[in-house]
């Protein structure tokens, strides 16, 4: 039972942060493509800004790993 709840928690951590990343990247990506259309030299800057919201899902993944391997191992 407890292991099942931990698995649900880990899934939610990755799922919700994944949605949040997508939500943030939607606007950043659109703006980056817009800027690059006008000035292709902005590709590098656009790419960096585009991947920044990815950190949100990475944090979610870290939380999920901790839940499964640290909390899950002690159950």
């Amino acid at each position, binding site marked *: 039972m407890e292991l099942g709840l931990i698995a649900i928690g880990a899934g939610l951590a990755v799922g919700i942060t994944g949605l949040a990343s997508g939500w943030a990247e*939607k*606007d*950043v990506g*659109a*703006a*980056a*493509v*817009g*800027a690059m*259309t*006008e*000035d292709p030299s*902005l590709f590098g800057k656009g790419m960096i800004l585009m991947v920044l919201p990815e950190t949100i899902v990475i944090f979610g993944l870290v939380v999920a790993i901790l839940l499964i391997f640290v909390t899950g191992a002690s159950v």
Partner: protein
Amino acid sequence: MFGRKGKGGKGNYPYAVARVKAKKAQLMGEDTYSKMLMMSLPEISRFIGESGYQKEIAALAGRYDGVDLIEHATYSNMANYFRGVLDVTTGELHEMLAAYLEKWDIWNFKVILRGKSFGMDADSIKEDLVPAGKLDQQALERLLSMESEEEIIAAYGRVANVIFPTELISAYEESRNLSELEDFLEKDHYDSLLRSIDPSSRPTRLYQDYIRKEIDITNVETILKLKAEGIRGEEVMKYIIPGGKQIDKKLATQLANAESLSAAVNDLAPLDFYDDIKNALDETNSLRSIVAGMKKYHIRQAKTFSHLYPLSVIPIIDFMIHKENEVNNIRIIARGLNSGLDADVIKELLVI
């Protein structure tokens, strides 16, 4: 959840604003105008042909030269920019921009109607069109191909969703005087522009305020110009556009009835842009400087608002105002140099 609102959604603000900001970064600065004042007309043509106007200068260089080339190339460039921005926007944002750019449809309609009433041929009229609004070149050419002015008015009403009052049309048919028709279109434009803005969010409320201030400025300009011509009272009130922010009917009447230009300017003391007019008055005491002062104030307002709400319609309108201003400044320099005006006089006319 994903920002959809109404038929076309809220609009693609991040994409459109990023593109517009990149375009705005390429606009000319104050130093460039000073440099252009030192050039001859062919040098200006070459200079703008090497900056953002290369495509238009290259396309038109075979047909025009001197000041005509600069005028046609700048207007054509502005039309391409504005239509480009309109084409990449969607939803509510597109609707708001289309309503803002309707002023160019009105401009083109006036050009066509005036050209036809003076018996000009279609090719000459076509050269003066600026297809920067909702109506593209094809739609304008369809209007141009019509024989009678009545047909053009009816067709414009259909394509631009304007309902002309029947008494206005019959008055025009009798007198062939375009001024009342033009006045009606101007009022209708601001009315539909204000109606296109949904003031439910802070940026759109700011945009609405901005348009209402533009109405104030247009009204003040009209009052002062008519006053300088010696026209006062009710005759002036006919041309006042309703919906202004600070100038209501009472203040407009007061201004219209003022004894002189300086008395009218004193009545404007409580208004936001008074300081800009006051400075202009101290310098030269001319209507031209007062109008330039108001335009400077208006441009400054757009710039301030655009920094407050980066993901709204305001940065796009700010770009359009600056682009139009750049085109006007280049035309002022070209016309001024062509007329042999002194560089200092031309500089005073520029809105920087």
